[in-house]
């Protein structure tokens, strides 16, 4: 007996393609609004280049795996779907891992285990389960692109602020000269929590302002 395809395509509440893409950038930003994927967010954003690499790697894995899951959604059996998703994600993570090693061994060392840990990034599994597994290729990829870009942009902002205050540089270019007094805390995990908290607060505050204006 063949497996019954469980993932029947459903009509989504957001049929407009642009909205599917745009919501991840701001309104449902995975970091500042959904507060997902905190592990890489806090761990690797101590410099802009690390943050950007992590953001781009996640973007790549997210888009590719959401696309593939969307294509295979009628084939993957319902009960084994998480294992199937993880297998697909892991394939693309391996590709990203090797690509980072090939481009810069230094950044790869700085990111450590966190590249491999993209496999269990809850944003990726979340988008697959909640969206890609129920939608056609085009909306699935657009959704993944929006979420991935939102994630990468948020990581870049976080990494930029922490590197600027913690090392006095942006992408390794020193801005303040030799006698810069580093804010040690910014390079430590507690600085990650601090900057993230302030940014989440700022985004929430701006969104409240927007909501009040549109009333």
């Amino acid at each position, binding site marked *: 007996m063949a497996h019954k395809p469980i993932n029947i395509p459903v009509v989504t509440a957001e049929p407009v393609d642009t909205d599917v893409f745009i919501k991840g950038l701001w309104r449902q930003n995975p970091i500042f609004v959904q507060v997902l994927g905190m592990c890489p967010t806090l761990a690797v954003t101590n410099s802009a280049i690390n943050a950007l690499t992590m953001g781009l790697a996640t973007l790549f894995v997210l888009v590719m795996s959401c696309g593939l899951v969307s294509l295979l959604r009628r084939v993957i059996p319902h009960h084994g779907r998480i294992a199937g998703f993880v297998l697909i994600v892991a394939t693309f993570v391996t590709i990203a891992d090797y690509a980072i090693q090939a481009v810069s061994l230094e950044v790869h060392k700085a990111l450590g285990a966190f590249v491999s840990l993209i496999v269990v990034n809850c944003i990726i599994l979340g988008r697959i389960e909640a969206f890609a597994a129920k939608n056609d290729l085009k909306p699935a990829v657009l959704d993944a692109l929006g979420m991935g870009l939102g994630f990468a942009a948020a990581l870049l902002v976080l990494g930029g602020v922490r590197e600027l205050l913690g090392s006095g540089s942006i992408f390794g270019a020193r801005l303040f000269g030799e006698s810069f*007094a580093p804010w*040690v*805390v910014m390079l430590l995990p*507690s600085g990650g929590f601090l900057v993230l908290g302030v940014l989440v607060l700022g985004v929430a505050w701006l969104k409240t302002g927007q909501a009040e204006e549109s009333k």
Partner: protein
Amino acid sequence: MEPLRKTLSIHTSPHIASGADVARIMRHVIYALLPVCGFAIYAFGWAALLTLVVAVVVCWLSEVLFCRLLRKPATLADGSVTITGILFALTLPPGLPLWMTVVGAFAAVGLGKFLFGGLAANVFNPALVGRAFLQAAFPGAMTTWSPVLAADRFSQIPSSLLAAPFMQPNYDTVSSASPLALLKFEHTPTPLGDLFLGTTAGSLGETSSLIILLGGAYLIARGMMSWRIPAGILVAVAVVGGISYVADSERFGSPLFMLFSGGLMLGAMFMATDPVSSPVTHRGCFVYGLLIGLVVVVIRNWGGLAEGVMYAILFANAVSPHIDNWLQPLPFGRKPGHGRERGS
């Protein structure tokens, strides 16, 4: 017909108001702090005066900014933020660059006070939040102590104070170690007389135990401060410090040294007694004080840092609602264990 005259007004307790409002209490705390500020200026000269002025002004400006931003009623006039500024400045090492003072004062009011909702809503003592932020961000500058009673303290402003924003300070004098660091890292005790009078290196307002004790006594005599909190702290430090001194007098300071060195007196009298972040019940205040004293001795004796008053108070601040919850007094007439609601 004669109009009904209101002879009896009915409302819930409290029925007797003491006339003590936020502004009045804060004014008396400022009076008690003035001698401490005066001694800081006498001991450290222009460095102390500039740090105090900058810290207070930045705290005022941040208060106005956040009140506007968050559309809260202005609380500048009640004096609480002035005290935050003064206390914050008094915990800083003399010679700290003024731009770091600005950052810390902004963090004290922004992170310490308004993040939690403004006046009377802060979980932690705002002045100590500002100091903890600076300690985490600039550990080097926060543990560089200028010598006390330097000859040129009124003739020139130390160049480290005027370091350009984001730049490291240049110290033009040889820095001296604080009594606690001397004991911990070089095993050299400081004479008790110096500690009591304040002729040692240290943060601006923490050096003279005598003047701080006088300020605290004034507040207690005026009924503006719970004596149980400082009492709890001093008892715990004396007892736990005494036990550890008896156990190993080579390594650990004597109980009297523990009591009069570092920020203990300033913390016990003015920081831990912040009415917002300390418990409200009488027994709770005592337990809270004991907890602070215990943590101070543990950090000083066995921790990596020479001084632990700041972290001890911040830690106890976090615990204080739980202490209140645990030691809730019974409402009048209710028997223990009878329908008692605990931490509902």
